[in-house]
């Protein structure tokens, strides 16, 4: 088994799984019917993409593990998502801010991943790009509506961006496994995306009459399995059924 490739795939997929779970929490709790449906639709897209990645990862392990085992039965430190996506739905501005900061990255990333010489990863990327373009439209639209809205919505949107900013730099970190997979022409060198990312984000923030935070300190750790306290609670929800009734299906 190609252990580096396995780890690399989890690095992509875990981001979407955890973000999808966060968005799923809004099902029936969104601020309005339309935004509720939008967030859960985005969640569904992400889960669909995740299934393709985990099915591929399961095939690579060759040890009979299924996509469900990978999604449901790992321990907290075995998840390698970035810290950004596990941050809670503090308020709608946070939900949108988190989505926006991830979507801009996600689309840049997939645009490169479609050039991968791994045909499976390239196919998943091509399929996902179409969906993620819609996600980015949705989140950018809302950043603008809230940022350029009332004094209160503006302040909330600015607070969310300021609060989440510390988690953005980690998107561009590479693990040792990442570096090897990149050198094999399979993975994406995320360090090359950083400049475009920040200029794109700044441009959209400016349109939304928001300030781009002046960064000094960035949090990291998710890619190495070291998470914020929020992930444990999320996983206890996500894994509850499989832990309580092992192997249950419906």
């Amino acid at each position: 088994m190609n252990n580096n490739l396995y780890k690399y795939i989890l690095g992509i997929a875990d981001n979407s799984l955890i973000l999808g779970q966060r968005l799923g929490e809004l099902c029936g709790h969104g601020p309005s019917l339309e935004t509720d449906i939008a967030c859960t639709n985005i969640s569904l897209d992400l889960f669909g993409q995740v299934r393709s990645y985990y099915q591929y990862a399961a095939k690579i392990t060759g040890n009979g593990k299924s996509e469900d085992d990978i999604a449901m039965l790992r321990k907290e430190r075995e998840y390698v998502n970035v810290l950004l996506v596990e941050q809670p739905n503090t308020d709608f501005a946070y939900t949108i801010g988190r989505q926006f900061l991830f979507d801009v990255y996600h689309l840049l990333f997939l645009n490169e991943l479609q050039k991968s010489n791994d045909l499976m990863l390239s196919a998943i990327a091509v399929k996902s790009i179409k969906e993620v373009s819609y996600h980015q439209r949705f989140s950018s639209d809302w950043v603008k509506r809230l940022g350029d809205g009332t004094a209160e919505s503006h302040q909330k949107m600015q607070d969310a961006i300021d609060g989440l900013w510390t988690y953005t730099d980690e998107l561009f970190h590479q693990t040792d496994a990442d570096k090897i997979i990149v050198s094999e022409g399979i993975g994406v060198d995320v360090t090359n995306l950083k400049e475009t990312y920040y200029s794109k984000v700044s441009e959209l923030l400016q349109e939304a009459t928001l300030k781009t935070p002046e960064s000094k300190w960035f949090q990291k750790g998710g890619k190495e399995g070291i998470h914020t306290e929020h992930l444990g609670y999320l996983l206890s929800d996500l894994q509850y059924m499989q832990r309580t009734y092992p192997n249950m299906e419906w």
Partner: protein
Amino acid sequence: MVTAEQHIDQKLFPILEQVSDPEIPVLSIMDMGVVRSAVLENDIVKVQITPTYSGCPAMDVIGDDIKKALLDTGYNSEIELILAPAWTTDWITPKGRKALEDYGIAAPLDAEADKGVLLEGKRLVKCTNCTSTNTRLVSQFGSTACKAQFQCDDCQEPFDYFKCLK
């Protein structure tokens, strides 16, 4: 290399045509363009299907329905889910577009017009109730991943629009 060509054994076509999309029952899966190939090999029908959207929950049901339809006519089958080439709304047949409209779902516009209605507030989508184009976007996301919500400002009908995917 991947191609967008379809390989359907002509004698299997009428059987597959009978299988409908679980979320839009008036529409055959053949009219949706999700079946990319169906060929008989050593007494087994090998079928390749492709999802409209990654998270489309209908794909498992479609796979099962195809298996059943083929079995009812005496064929064993294997279903394979493929991702490349990615599905596009261009693969919906003219008959399929008509069925969508009759069902109350506005068929996808071309990519340029789609962008106009979803991003720039243009009024181009035809109301499925009164055919007026005096319609507006209510939400980019609708009852399923593939649709957006619209409302007609003439007859007030709320309806789904099938988003263009290319």
